[in-house]
């Protein structure tokens, strides 16, 4: 019996390669049909391993993976009907682009005429029709990548796995490809499990993001939720830019708490992940949520600060200030009409709202 709705289910999955270290620790993850879910995490956090277990190239040491209501325990990789785009594309070097695309169809004994039309359609989908007769080595990285995507989609799989498919591309091409993959996902109505360690990429593309660290899912939520409301210091640090203030909880009142920041100052923050009065905590604060010289009384947290450095970034000015004994505190000032330019060394006040400052675990 499966819980209704979930297309892919990881149930208590554990994986160890050497019998000593759990590379994946107790993974529980439900993916619904049509979803674009991204596994995001630092190198070595177990993303590829998770993907390989789903594709059938690694066996879970414990637990089970269920696909469309069926346990995958005894289903070999070639019967799973899962399209996969590998980290290094894995195009067959001795076959032309066309032959690469025809491969999954030949295996499925599709008729010659059908193969031709479907290969052509897949190539047109990634705009590579003119390269049909080339070998992979004669294509650029971005073109190879698109062939790999087309090959993983040409046999209409239920599920497509992509392992850092854009890792090798330059920024511009990567952004263009991100959009293309997103459009393909929307158009073809497939379920995608996508792996990356690029947070911007994850935010751009996903319905939901699972942040991995040390073989565990730290947080599983939508991109905005993840950015706005990280539940741990790791997630806050990993996704987007983040100011960290270390301190100790001195009082709890409902959802908020008072934190005594090392180096001076009492901060009122949202109690998200604190153990209680007296426990250490990390305050997390997005740079764009900090105001400089706010009107007195408009925010509960207000501290004197000194401008240390200004970096001009076009649309905004990154301003580094020292406050509460931390000199790596960053404020983003929008470069909009009427905004004031500060000089390094100027004394200012900085302030933020209670709900923008999240008290998280101490790590």
């Amino acid at each position, binding site marked *: 019996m499966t819980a209704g709705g979930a297309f892919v289910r990881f149930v208590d999955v554990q994986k160890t390669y050497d019998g000593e270290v759990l590379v994946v620790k107790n993974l529980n993850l439900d993916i619904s049909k049509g979803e674009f879910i991204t596994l995001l995490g630092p190198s070595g956090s177990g993303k590829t391993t998770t993907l390989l277990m789903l594709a059938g190239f690694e066996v879970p040491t414990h637990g089970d993976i269920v696909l469309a209501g069926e346990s995958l325990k005894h289903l070999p990789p070639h019967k799973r009907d899962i399209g996969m785009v590998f980290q290094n594309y*894995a195009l067959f070097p001795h076959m032309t682009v066309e032959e690469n695309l025809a491969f999954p169809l030949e295996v499925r004994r599709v008729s010659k005429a059908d193969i031709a039309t479907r290969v052509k359609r897949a190539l047109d989908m990634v705009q590579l029709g003119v390269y049909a007769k080339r070998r992979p080595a004669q294509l650029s990285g971005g073109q190879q990548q698109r062939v790999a995507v087309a*090959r993983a989609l040409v046999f209409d799989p239920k599920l497509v796995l992509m392992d850092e498919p854009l890792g090798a591309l330059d920024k511009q091409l990567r952004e263009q490809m991100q959009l293309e993959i997103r459009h393909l996902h929307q158009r073809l109505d497939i379920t995608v499990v996508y792996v990356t360690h690029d947070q911007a990429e994850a935010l751009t593309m996903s319905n939901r993001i699972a942040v991995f660290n040390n073989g565990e899912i730290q947080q599983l939520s939508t991109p905005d939720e993840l950015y706005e409301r990280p539940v741990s210091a790791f997630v806050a640090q990993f996704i987007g830019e983040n100011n960290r203030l270390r301190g100790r909880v001195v009082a709890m009142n409902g959802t908020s708490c008072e934190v005594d920041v090392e180096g001076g100052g009492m901060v009122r923050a949202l109690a998200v992940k604190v153990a209680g009065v007296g426990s250490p905590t990390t305050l997390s604060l997005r740079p764009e949520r900090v105001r400089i010289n706010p009107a007195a009384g408009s925010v509960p947290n207000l501290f004197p600060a000194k401008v240390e450095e200004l970096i001009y970034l076009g649309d905004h000015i990154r301003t580094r200030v020292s406050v509460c004994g931390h000199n790596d505190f960053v404020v983003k000032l929008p470069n909009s009409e009427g905004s004031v330019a500060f000089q390094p060394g100027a004394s200012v006040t900085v302030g933020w709202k209670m709900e923008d400052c999240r008290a998280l675990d101490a790590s």
Partner: protein
Amino acid sequence: MQAPDPGPMPYAHEYGTRLMVSAAVATTGIMVDGVPLKLKLRRAERMRKLKAVGLVAPLFLFIVVSFGIPIVVMLFNSIYDPYVAKLTPRTAVALAAWDGNDLPAEPVFEALALDLKDAQKAKQAALIGRRLNYELSGARSKLIVSAKAAAKLETGPYKEALIAADPMWGEHGTWTLLKRTTRAYTPYFFLSSIDLRYDANGEIEPVPEGEAVYQAVFVRTLLISATVTALTLVLGFPLAYLLATLPARTANILLIFVLMSFWTSLLVRTTAWFVLLQTQGPINDFLFYTGIVGERIQLIYTRFGTITAMTHIQLPFTLLPIYSVMKGISPSHVRAARSLGAGPFYAFWRVYFPQTMPGIAAGCLLTFILCLGYYITPSLVGGPTDQLISTYVALFVSSAGNWGMGSALGTILLVATLILFFIYNRLVGIERMRLN
């Protein structure tokens, strides 16, 4: 009065300049600091080329001296045999005018007698005899006798005197042979190498059934080499695959076992097989005492023994290139094939195996070419009908002193090897060959 007409001139001038510039661009390309870019590139490249030449020069010289020159000498020796021409200059001139019908006339006999006299004095008559003996058995001793007789002759008629010294001078065939051998350049050795010869009238004919040797030897050489190559491939491919897929530590240990036989000298390995294959040797002991065979079987001096020993010796040569190619094949290719729906065997056959082709081709070519030159192993563990062409080359060069035959056989072997190589190049492409 002198004011020049300013009308069309500037325009023409400008137009002309433009033409010139575009012409300059067309012929010399882009200019940098007044120097054509192409010239600059050539200058920059020249230094690099000089360096490259300097680096390869010592090896190049070594190869020329130790490899190139001997090969040229060998090619030359296979068609060039000047001794008779040098030792019988008068006869050569006199025979040039002979029409080839009947016996030559008295002047030819006189020329021969005088030449033999000189040769006898220089103690080189045996050299002429040896060459004649290649095609006319017994001619060596007969010529030595004739030369001794000629040395004593003072006046003619020489014809009767020489025929009296040895009756072969009264035979027409002797003279056609002599006329042929007075030409320094001769196809004789090549003809012999493919079992052809001259008949008494100087016409080319196949040698009689019982005397033909070399065609069979060439066929045998190719056959044994092909068999050994196929066996090393059949044995080596799965092992290479295992080595390439095992974890590095285990693979390295196994690889040492493969290389161990590589590190032992060929002679030692052959001798080991010589001992193993004896009728009273360990293999026969085992087969006999375990009752697998009722009677000791002949293993040594057989085709079986030759092929077994050669296969053992050649195995690493086939295996290593395949292994090295397999190491370079990303495991993700087979994974990709599996995820695309191919079963394990189909994925191997369609995706993995084709990528090992450069290694297979390199390994097999290497083994095949090395097999063509096998000499010690067949002569130690093979029977008389298992000897390869190199045995004959060695025989001619070292024992018989017949450089012509040795060179001709060697040249044919070389050409066969080159032909194979070109076929390989057409099929696989030399730039794709990867050795270890």
